[in-house]
């Protein structure tokens, strides 16, 4: 298409690299997202059940987890990225490229997602928990059959928000050599002043966010009665 070559001269010359950047971003998002989902869900549930008045009230566990989450939430991601390089090397064998950025992404977004899960579960009517207990449900049954099941819609919304904010973090991760769209935009769009590349990356991200938001909202609505 000759029009595209005129409109987006720099991008069209680097198409293979652009596709790879898209793939890397997706890869970062998928790997870290899956890990964040598991840990965040577990931490969110632990916070919910161990907090004062919870079904497995446990002050020490709640206090420690609560403080750790607050600590990691207050560290700016760009600092986390560099500070966790040794840990990353130890766990993943490298501190660069997609593999090297999974650890900081997990540490950066798990606390956020844990809080999101906690507040999603907090929307569960206390009366439902009480009713389930009165019917002989064990605490674990209450977690799986009441908390998770009844707050499916808010949890889906929490996942949506987390995926979107993770997209922002992966772009930032480009700064430490993780690759991906953020890195692509900085190296060409910013450093070499190739405006068309900046615009296309922004458009791709906007599109990605919109799609995620739309799917999330649709699933959430499907699970609301």
């Amino acid at each position, binding site marked *: 298409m000759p029009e595209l070559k005129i409109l987006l001269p720099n991008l069209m010359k680097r198409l293979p690299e652009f596709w790879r950047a898209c793939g890397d971003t997706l890869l970062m998002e998928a790997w870290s997202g899956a890990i964040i989902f598991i840990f965040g869900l577990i931490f969110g549930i632990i916070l919910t059940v161990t907090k004062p008045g919870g079904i497995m009230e446990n002050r020490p566990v709640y206090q420690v987890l609560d403080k750790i989450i607050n600590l990691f939430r207050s560290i700016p991601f760009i600092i986390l990225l560099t500070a966790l390089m040794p840990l990353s090397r130890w766990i993943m064998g490298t501190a660069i490229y997609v593999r090297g950025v999974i650890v900081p992404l997990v540490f950066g977004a798990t606390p956020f997602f844990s809080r999101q899960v906690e507040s999603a579960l907090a929307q569960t009517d206390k009366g439902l928990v009480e009713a389930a207990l*009165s019917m002989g449900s064990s605490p674990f049954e209450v977690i799986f059959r009441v908390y998770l099941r009844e707050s499916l819609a808010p949890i889906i919304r929490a996942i949506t928000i987390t995926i979107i904010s993770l997209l922002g973090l992966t772009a930032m991760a480009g700064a430490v050599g993780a690759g991906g769209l953020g890195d692509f935009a900085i190296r060409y769009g910013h450093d070499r002043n190739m405006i068309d590349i900046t615009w296309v990356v922004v458009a791709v991200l906007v599109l990605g966010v919109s799609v995620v938001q739309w799917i999330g909202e649709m699933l959430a609505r499907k699970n609301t009665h």
Partner: protein
Amino acid sequence: MIELEHIVKKFHADKKDTAIHAVNDVSLTINDGDIYGIIGFSGAGKSTLVRCINLLERPDSGSVKIDGVEMTKLKPRELYKARTKIGMIFQQFNLMPSRTVFQNVAYPLKNMTKDEIKKRVRDLLALVEIAEKEDAYPSELSGGQKQRVAIARALANDPTILLCDEATSALDPQTTGSILQLLKDLNKQLGLTIVVITHEMEVVKNICLKAAVMDAGKIIERGDVFTIFSDPQHPVTRNFVRTTSNLSKIETLIKDDSPMVQLKPGELMARLVYIHADVSEPLISFASREFDIEINIILADVEIVAGAMVGGTVVIFNGPRERINRAIDYYKSKDIRVEVIKDAGA
């Protein structure tokens, strides 16, 4: 049989050391097949007390025995099992919004095949007369229908006890009536022991044969409902009884200084409360003739509680004081309680 002995439950307000005694040394025995009312104003501790029966609240001290089994000593697994035999329904129904009526009732059913569950749920829904709503979500039901589903769910595992925590307080009077009727039927059909927590005297009057009155964490009065109604001893109980009786309107009339309650000199206004009276006797006209005084009825309220007559009248006596006193003595001899409300002097 439910046997509560010396139950104490404290809550700590804020982080201070001042504990609030929600339940303060309460002992209570409820026999099999009873419909037992526990009445009190909000904050009296009745909800906490009833939660001590299925250990949703663990008492700080005291013993909870159900059919002779000490609940507070059960291991967690045993407690979960024991709870399946104690149904509970709530003011806000507490149905799971993401589940259909069928799925809600099926929630507590375990170790059953799909077909067995289907049959059990359908039987239960038929029992509470709401079979046609099987596939509806709770948000599509009215309050009365929700409570019926909640009752079906509470009965899923064939409990011997049903705890009702303000179960009709969110319903309109008509629906309240139909739910109470359903509870009465279940009590008869299944021999279910029912514990009814309420702040509405009407509810107790309607379905309970025995009741306890709670105030500030203690049971201040207990016994059969008829006695509590006809002859309340404690001021709080009297307050409750008055809320359901027309006779209490006299206080409002006096406060408003209504012309109806203006006394002429020599007149005396009194409340006559029938305790064990044979109301068929013409008490007013007899006294009027016998002592040659005028007795003017201002208000009257007689009703049936637990199958017996309860009530009284508010009257104004007019005549020579000595004869009025003789009439009052006559009433007292007939087991009628006479409370002087207002006296214009001899």
